[in-house]
């Protein structure tokens, strides 16, 4: 992954970054969401500078954006040497939450009723022949009720 390292500044600036991280995350998320184009960290940084006259280091923006990506709030695709980011829509967020729900330790599978459970190879073959037989019999006698076996 191409990322030019974490901010190298003194301890005080690291602490400031950490304090501001939540606000910055929200701000960057807002910028990416309102823009229809995928944005690179550089472009996001320019926009922040343009809107509130703040100079953020490039690496800070990269760090926060990759954190947002890790949280599933941003999607990204490779663009040149880095990535460009797009906001994840609400439905995808829901999907991410759901799949993490299914994968996590809580017994969620127990309350979620899945349409189909897993198929073993044997079950799959069985299913294949059941359906094939059904199609044959409905093709043989259209209009006839399905026969019981």
């Amino acid at each position: 992954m191409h990322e030019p390292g974490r901010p190298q500044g003194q301890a005080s600036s690291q602490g400031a970054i950490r304090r501001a991280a939540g606000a910055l995350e929200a701000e960057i998320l807002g910028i990416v969401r309102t823009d229809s184009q995928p944005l690179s960290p550089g472009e996001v940084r320019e926009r922040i500078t343009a809107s509130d006259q703040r100079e953020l280091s490039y690496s800070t923006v990269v760090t926060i954006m990759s954190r947002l990506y890790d949280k599933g709030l941003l999607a990204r695709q490779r663009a040149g040497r880095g990535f460009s980011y797009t906001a994840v829509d609400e439905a995808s967020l829901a999907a991410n939450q759901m799949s993490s729900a299914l994968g996590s330790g809580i017994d969620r599978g127990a309350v979620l009723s899945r349409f189909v459970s897993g198929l073993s190879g044997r079950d799959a073959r069985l299913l294949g022949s059941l359906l094939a037989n059904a199609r044959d019999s409905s093709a043989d006698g259209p209009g006839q009720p399905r026969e019981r076996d």
Partner: protein
Amino acid sequence: MWLLYLPLVIPALAGVAARPLATVLEPRQATWLLTLTAVALAGCSSAALALLAAYAAAQAPVLAALGDYSWQVVRRGDPVPSSAGTIAGLALAAAAVAVAVIVRKRARALADSYRRAAQLHSNDTVVVVPGPAIEAYAMPGRPGRIVVSDILLDRLNTGSRAALIAHEQAHLSGRHYIFVAAARLAAAANPMLLPVARSVEYTVERWADEHAAAVTGDRGLVAETIGQVALLASSQPARLRSISLGAVGARSPRVSLAWAGPVPRRVAALLTAPPPRRITLLAVCVVLVLAAGAAALETVGDLHALLEVAQAGR
């Protein structure tokens, strides 16, 4: 006294009978019967364990002094070996722990499901989610949600979509997770009831399948949809597609479902006529459950009588 062991044996019978019952009974009937049976038998067997432990404890001189009765009389009148009492006590404690664990897990999962269902801002019951998974499930909540992945919806025609939604809707409106959870709790209290719990998981699916068949008016469509989704969701779709087209699959006139998993059994059930309600079978099951209950009650009376004699003998 041997009656006390009856509530411990009947759950094993129920475990053996559960799968055939789940197959032949009408699904709603089967779900109610199996769930109530599981809960009742778990209650009876736990009561029997408690009684065995109580008999053993009643022989302890310390307790006899406290209760002001003669432990010698109890020991003479009581054929329960103290080892059996100890084992029963341990089994009862293990059952209590297992039930507590399951209650906690299920409650957390349910609360989680409600929270997530509420988090989805859409007002629709059906939530379509993007993503690579072939996934469709019902989430209990207020309102409950039906979550379907867009990839799956894309592959289904209008009729199949209606069948799938109707199936999941039946789970939500019938609150099927309560039956499943109750049976699972019973199985936690008495592991011999595990096959009954699994059968309840199967019969609620059948219940929802029959509902979907009634809504769409086409049993064959529901069967096809289940088959299609199951094959899509399984890992080998290419090979299976050719099988379902009849190119590879050897066409056997009779397909044995003896050891089959739930999906082929559901499809097979939908490809035949809807199951009738069977009153006689139902009655037999109810009688067995009542017998277990009566046996447990009878021994409670016995213990009480014995202790009264023991008190008089003091």
